[in-house]
């Protein structure tokens, strides 16, 4: 194969473009240190140097990397068969090991033991807080979204809105917002769980019924708009929601049942066990849900809506159900966050947060409960590490850029996630094979 052939040169161009984009992504922000518009004065070269590839000063390095990537891809192109054949047995080892029942239970037992003893192993308070707030709560959120995206195959971009509804309902009912609590009677935080969950669910149903009758993409954009509005609303209605400052004094969780009196204080360890409890409950509940009648109805609708309808499944009913379950878990996450952190403000519930949860589901594997949980741990650990240590010139706001890129990459190379649910993977593959050659169906998607 010639390095100067047409396809090879095309690949070189792609590699160089990729290198350029990576340079932009990882470089310093444009107009660094000065407001962006001041970079627009002076000569044209001066102006340009505040933006784009020129200011990163590392484009030479990345040019080299681009060329190396080109050479590697050329090599792979030539020897792909051999490489794949050699890698196959190695890649198959984890699956073979996990196929044994004893090994699976051994792994689960190990994981449970390690999670129970984590507070003993992690000595820094900071990391404990991080584990609770960034990983514990987010596993719950991801598991909830997994019901919508993974089980029912609907794209919900308004998860941040339900999250916000849960949190602000907590603040409202505990009486710490500028608006007085309903009936002027603040209630304990733990009692807010059913209220927040119920409220989020009601909003989910109101939003879901008109949009779920239509094609899938309407749901995505309507929920996105809803998240945008809620984000705007809580940030600007200072008379109702406290505006940009939100509320700083949501009371902590406390249990007063009969002889038991316990208040969750400042130490993160009790919160950790609370979160752990909820995660276990969620895992068990959603696994049960997956194999229940409802779960099987979701699979049927996801695979073929017309066929599902013909055997007596009402698609709208089950779709709304999935959407409501997702919204409810969003609300639950909101109540939990409000109780854990104690202060809530609009930055926690920006509409981008929905995509943050979405990537946890996609990365782990849509529809696979364990995959989503493990994916959430990995992604949340990496992002909180990046946010707190900011290595390699990473900046706080860059997160969504990497998430966006990761979403595209996952969809191109591994749409079923890193730990795919077996059924989902089979489904995607069979869809792709079934629809091969049918251009019309390919272009219009799975709708008839």
């Amino acid at each position: 194969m010639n390095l100067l052939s047409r396809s090879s040169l095309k690949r070189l161009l792609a590699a160089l473009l990729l290198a350029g984009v990576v340079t932009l992504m990882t470089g310093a922000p444009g107009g660094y240190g000065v407001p962006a518009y001041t970079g627009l004065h002076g000569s044209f070269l001066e102006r340009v140097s505040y933006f784009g590839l020129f200011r990163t000063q590392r484009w030479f390095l990345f040019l080299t990397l681009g060329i190396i990537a080109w050479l590697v891809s050329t090599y792979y192109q030539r020897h792909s068969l051999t490489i794949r054949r050699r890698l196959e047995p190695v890649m198959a080892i984890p699956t073979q090991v996990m196929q044994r029942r004893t090994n699976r239970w051994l792994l689960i037992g190990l994981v449970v033991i390690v999670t129970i003893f984590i507070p003993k192993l992690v000595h820094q308070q900071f990391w404990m807080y991080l584990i609770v707030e960034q990983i514990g709560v987010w596993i719950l959120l991801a598991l909830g979204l997994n019901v919508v995206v993974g089980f029912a195959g609907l794209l919900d971009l308004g998860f941040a809105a339900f999250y916000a509804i849960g949190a602000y309902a907590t603040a409202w009912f505990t009486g710490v917002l500028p608006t007085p609590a309903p009936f002027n009677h603040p209630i304990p935080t733990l009692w807010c769980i059913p209220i927040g969950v119920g409220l989020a669910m009601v909003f989910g149903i109101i939003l879901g019924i008109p949009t779920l009758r239509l094609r899938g993409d309407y749901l995505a954009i309507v929920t996105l708009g809803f998240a945008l509005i809620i984000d705007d609303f809580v940030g600007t209605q200072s008379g109702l929601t406290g505006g940009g400052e939100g509320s700083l004094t949501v009371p902590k969780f406390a249990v007063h049942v009969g002889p038991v009196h316990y208040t969750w204080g400042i130490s993160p360890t009790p919160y950790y066990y609370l979160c752990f409890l909820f995660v276990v409950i969620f895992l068990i509940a959603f696994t049960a849900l997956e194999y229940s009648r409802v779960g099987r109805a979701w699979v049927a609708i996801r695979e073929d809506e017309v066929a599902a309808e013909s055997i007596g499944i009402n698609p709208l009913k089950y779709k709304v159900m999935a959407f409501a379950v997702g919204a409810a878990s969003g609300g639950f996450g909101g109540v939990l966050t409000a109780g854990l952190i104690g202060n809530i403000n609009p930055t926690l519930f920006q509409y981008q947060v929905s995509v943050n949860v979405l990537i946890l589901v996609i990365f782990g594997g849509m529809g696979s409960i364990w995959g989503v949980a493990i994916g959430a741990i990995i992604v949340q650990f990496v992002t909180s590490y990046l946010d707190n240590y900011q290595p390699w010139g990473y900046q706080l706001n860059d997160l969504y850029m990497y998430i966006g890129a990761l979403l595209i990459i996952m969809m191109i190379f591994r749409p079923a996630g890193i730990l795919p649910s077996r059924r989902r993977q089979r489904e995607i593959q069979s869809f792709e094979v079934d629809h091969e050659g049918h251009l019309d169906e390919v272009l219009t998607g799975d709708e008839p």
Partner: protein
Amino acid sequence: MGFAHFWLSGFDQIRTGFWAYFAVGLENGSLYAMIAVGYTLVYGVLGLINFAHGEVFMCGGFAAVFLTHGILGDRVANGWESVFLILAGIAIAGSVSALVATGVEQVAYRPLRRRNAPKLAYLISAIGASYFLQTLAGKEFGYGQNIFPAQVFPAGQTMFFIGKTPIHTIQVVCLVVGTAMFVAADRIVRSTRLGRGIRAVAQDSETSALMGVNIDRTITLTFIIGGSLAGAAGFLYALQNGIVQSSGTELGIYAFTAAVLGGIGNLRGAALGGLLIGLFGSFSVPFAFEGNISWTEIYTFIILVLVLIVRPTGILGEKSGRTA
């Protein structure tokens, strides 16, 4: 202030300043229409909503910022220079946006199309592209930093009066450019060979491929047409409001509502819906509680949901033969 008084004073404001609200409505409406064309064309051809279209619009706005500052610096243009700059801005912003739109198609859609991926995969990868572009723009130009282009004509310049209401130059420019570009797009889709290809693919892509339509090329050209209109809209929007990395998402929702209201998949519906949403948004401004501008967003969103409940096919319905 009582509730009834609030609504009455709103109507009072509309009565006294009708023409001002009307002009703003037409201005915004023509911008929404230009963006909505992109949604509707891509929907017709691919059968999916291009989530990254708002970001395509945003890129056009930033391109215009660079162009005008590069040529003008701190000066204020006048006379024929303004006309030239507007035309150049439309050309440059349009081509940058067309480039971005094609890039999105190549990176986020084409590999999935090659593999016959299910629908959900397209949506997710489009969302990824949208967030990627938005955050990259934020990184390059400052997050939440509203950047204005150089003054192509003096800010707030009045062209003529209707009664006592001043009509600003920017409003006239938006309406004229919007109309011209829409008519051009409409002509392309309705009466050229390329447009016939687009309509054929929208109707039945398999048969059109058998009839010798190059599907890949048709799709790319669709993205180019939609992108260039969105880019021009980005330039005009930036002249008036400045551009910020998140404006793509906000305007995108408005324009999408417009496309749905007019009947998604229908080009003329997009124009009609755009104008209606623009007028509606403008006339809803006096009814914002606490003078909060986000109420316009809420009202528009309610319109979107109502349309989806009552008539999902939109006012003009779907001509491309696909049900919603």
